[in-house]
């Protein structure tokens, strides 16, 4: 794992901070980069009460056991990836000990923790036309009746894999893509957003 000071955004080549200085009035869609401090893949048996309790005692979030849902509080998010697999995301810095704390809390239980902090880039997509942008590139049903605040799903966006998380009804989304696909995903989203009026916001932490 690289040292913190060596960390570089997967979208660094795009000069997003400079482009964020010229916001568009009444944009249909706003894109931004989300800064993520720590990402951990946690595996274990959700039916084991001690496992669920151990994870939530460290993260301060209940383990989502309902498929395709995520729990979020402050700068922390816990996303369902599979029946025995979750992704914990913490925006803030100084969370280097999170994996250690989790391992300590789960010490006698069947589990696995993998630090994947540098594996994914996160793109924020929001605005009144944000859902329509996504609908151009994924086969997932995004109607609010089936995909709403707190929903997450692993699917395709254009030609790349994404983990999509809806944050609220605005709608606001966080889109997790593998780091090497970050520029592709950003370019795809910019292109798909253009007809609705695209504004670029300064990067912020995953909210």
């Amino acid at each position: 794992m690289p040292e913190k000071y060596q960390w570089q955004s997967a979208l660094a080549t795009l000069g997003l901070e400079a482009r964020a200085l010229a916001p568009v009035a009444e944009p249909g869609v706003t894109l931004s980069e989300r800064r993520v401090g720590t990402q951990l893949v946690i595996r274990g048996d959700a039916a084991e009460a001690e496992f669920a309790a151990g994870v939530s005692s460290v993260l301060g979030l209940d383990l989502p056991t309902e498929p395709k849902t995520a729990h979020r509080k402050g700068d922390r998010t816990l996303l369902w990836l599979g029946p025995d697999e979750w992704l914990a995301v913490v925006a803030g810095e100084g969370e280097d000990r999170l994996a250690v704390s989790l391992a300590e809390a789960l010490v006698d239980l069947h589990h696995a923790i993998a630090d994947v902090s540098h594996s994914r880039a996160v793109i924020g997509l929001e605005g009144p036309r944000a859902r329509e942008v996504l609908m151009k590139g994924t086969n997932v049903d995004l109607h609010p009746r089936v995909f709403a605040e707190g929903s997450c799903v692993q699917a395709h966006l254009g030609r790349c894999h994404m983990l999509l998380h809806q944050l609220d009804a605005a709608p606001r989304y966080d889109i997790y893509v593998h780091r090497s696909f970050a520029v592709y995903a950003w370019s795809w989203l910019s292109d798909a957003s253009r007809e609705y009026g695209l504004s670029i916001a300064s990067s912020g932490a995953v909210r």
Partner: protein
Amino acid sequence: MLLIECPWCGPRDDQDFTYGGEAHIARPERPEKLSDEQWGDYLFMRSNPKGTHLERWVCNGCRRWFNVCRDTVTDEITAVYRMGEKPPGAIKKAGRKS
């Protein structure tokens, strides 16, 4: 297009799945006791029924394997069940000569 019901994710487009061949083929416990013909049968021979077929699929969303009962003529899916489970009662594995 097929709409396949992942046991965890629910109904999804068939693009979100990958096919994994015939289901319920157990690896022989003692391969060294088998004749070449028996081992070849395990490795390569598959039933190819016209009609009910029990098969494995993997969901590319939650990345879990599961079993599907599909009619190879109509593509109708009549059952979906998890790994390790038996096919629902009425469904029989189609004609394989023993």
